[in-house]
């Protein structure tokens, strides 16, 4: 079975309509790749094609999603049209590609990835040296930026840390692993951090990795409500 659909792509030069024919089970990204073969000036990001790299985030029919895991047959309406736009709240490089580097810098200030501890595993270090040591596992957050795009606060307050960054802070506080958390607490316990959030929960709704940033923010607010803003001491622990 094949589908013929009209992609309405918001490009830098204006909206372009492109007709593509794809297998019934194709993803939005597959359809974009067919469109690229028709017009090689089309600019979009993609890499892993399975929701691991987080590079193909865009607005699909007015809602944030990863093109690679959005089956085209779930978004095509009766009129056979799918609308694609670049993510909100990021500078557009061209067409559907945006610049997420400032978001990644904020993430870097708050937390390092890879902090999940293993349950039962023996690592390479054990194999090589005979000692057993916990191994690391990727965090769930793929840093795609969909939550930043969906967040209504980010639209008017670019200084807001945003959902993913606050969720990363929440993750660090859950499992600090001996690291100082005071700086992170001070960074999120301020007007640009958790107290700017209006609990709209769109971030959790669009998150493709089940990180649930909104819940993490509410939990941080609950824990920090009696802590003076921006005045967290080094020895502070939750």
């Amino acid at each position, binding site marked *: 079975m094949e589908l013929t659909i009209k992609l309405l792509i918001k490009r*830098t030069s204006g909206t372009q309509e492109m007709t593509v024919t794809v*297998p019934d*089970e194709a*993803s939005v990204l597959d359809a974009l*790749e067919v469109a690229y*073969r028709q017009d*090689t*000036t089309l*600019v979009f*990001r*993609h*890499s*892993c*094609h*399975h*929701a*691991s*790299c*987080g*590079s193909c985030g865009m607005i699909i029919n007015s809602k944030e999603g990863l093109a*690679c*895991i959005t089956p085209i047959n779930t978004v095509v309406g009766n009129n056979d049209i799918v609308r694609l736009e670049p993510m909100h709240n990021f500078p557009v*490089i*061209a067409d559907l*590609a945006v*610049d*997420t*580097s400032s978001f*990644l*810098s904020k*993430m*870097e200030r708050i937390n*390092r*990835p*890879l902090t999940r501890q*293993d*349950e*039962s*595993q*023996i*690592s*390479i270090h054990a*194999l*090589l040296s005979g000692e057993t040591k916990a*191994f*690391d*596992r*990727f*965090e*769930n957050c*793929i*840093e795609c930026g969909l939550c930043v795009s969906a967040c209504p606060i980010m639209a008017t307050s670019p200084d807001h840390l945003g959902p993913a960054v606050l969720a990363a802070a929440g993750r660090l506080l859950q499992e600090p692993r001996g690291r100082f958390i005071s700086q992170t607490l001070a960074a999120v316990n301020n007007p640009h951090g958790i107290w700017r959030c209006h609990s709209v929960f769109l971030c959790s709704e669009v998150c493709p*990795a*089940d990180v649930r940033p909104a819940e993490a923010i509410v939990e941080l607010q609950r824990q920090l409500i009696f802590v003076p803003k921006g005045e967290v001491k080094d020895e502070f622990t939750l």
Partner: protein
Amino acid sequence: MSSRTAIVIGAGSTGAAIAYDLSLRGFRVTLVERFGIASGTTGHNQAQLHSGARYAVNDPTSARECIEDNLILRQLMPDALELNDGLFIGLNEEHLAYRDIFLEACARCGIPARELTARQALELEPRLNPCLLVAIQVPDGVFDPYWYTLSFVATARSHGAKIMTFTEVIGLDVQAGRVQVRDRTTGKTYYMGCDAIINAAGPWVPKVAALADIHVEVEASAGVMVTVKERPCNMVINLLAPPADADIVVPQRQFSILGTTSWMVVDPDDIPIPPEHVESIIRQADWMIPGIRKAPLLSCMAAARPLVRQTGSSGREVTRGYRCIDHAQDAAQGFFSIVGGKATTARSMGEKMADLVCTRLGVQAECRTKDEPLLSYRFGL
């Protein structure tokens, strides 16, 4: 230190690692890529950080390269790797008979391998097929191919490299040392000059070389990968048998990538996914890990491996080794191509290519990528 200039074409793991190596040796490097970082073969990758065990029996050179780079990257690039080991499992008499050959080959290649009893293996990985006869644990791992490549890119940039994504090479004038590019974000075309042009475009290497009227042979061997939304195992699970189709389950984050297959394709930009490949991959994974076929399907993808063409062998038999080509042999001084290899060995591929470029350009500079820690992927965009 050199003040020579190099243009590297293709920002997959190979091109990024070459740009990184050359920038550490003092080259002024420009990395050009027609899409974003790791948007070709590297991105669509099964994400297995190889210990080399898979290739130990039939392709020991590749196996040794894998374990060497595997051990180096563990030290230098921790945030793009998941160090969860791999398990080669035997489910029938044929697999059992392969055990000794496999263990001996791993020992010869310097790959730490530990035999587990079926009971030990099932304790570690309770979802494995209970018919398990034997299991061998090796230092495989999982990497995030995008973050992995971004990490090389980030570190190259910190050493002065210029990264030009969404920039397509449309012409090569090798004699004049000029590359013609089109900035796809603006549509503008222009020329860039340099001392060395390095074609690291993976399966697109022949297409880029053809711009200079040079013929390079690549076996574009496609593979299908199926991602399901479940993580039933901690380790990478391989069948204890010579490399074949659909014999690996790679757990990554909260899902698993099952694969893969191997067939020759003509156009790496257009690889249709044969439905029967998807079916056979899921069927075999379900033999290794019963019940995995019930997991929700997340995506199906395919990419072309840019293998070195050898006469008399194809697909699975082709070495996963790589070849650095000096096109001085085609009367094109200062133009180089690289084919073959694996994402796991990107660092040593970068080293060998940079060695070749330095030798041809008469540059004296040692490789430093074995000790220099890499920056976070977060600085790569």
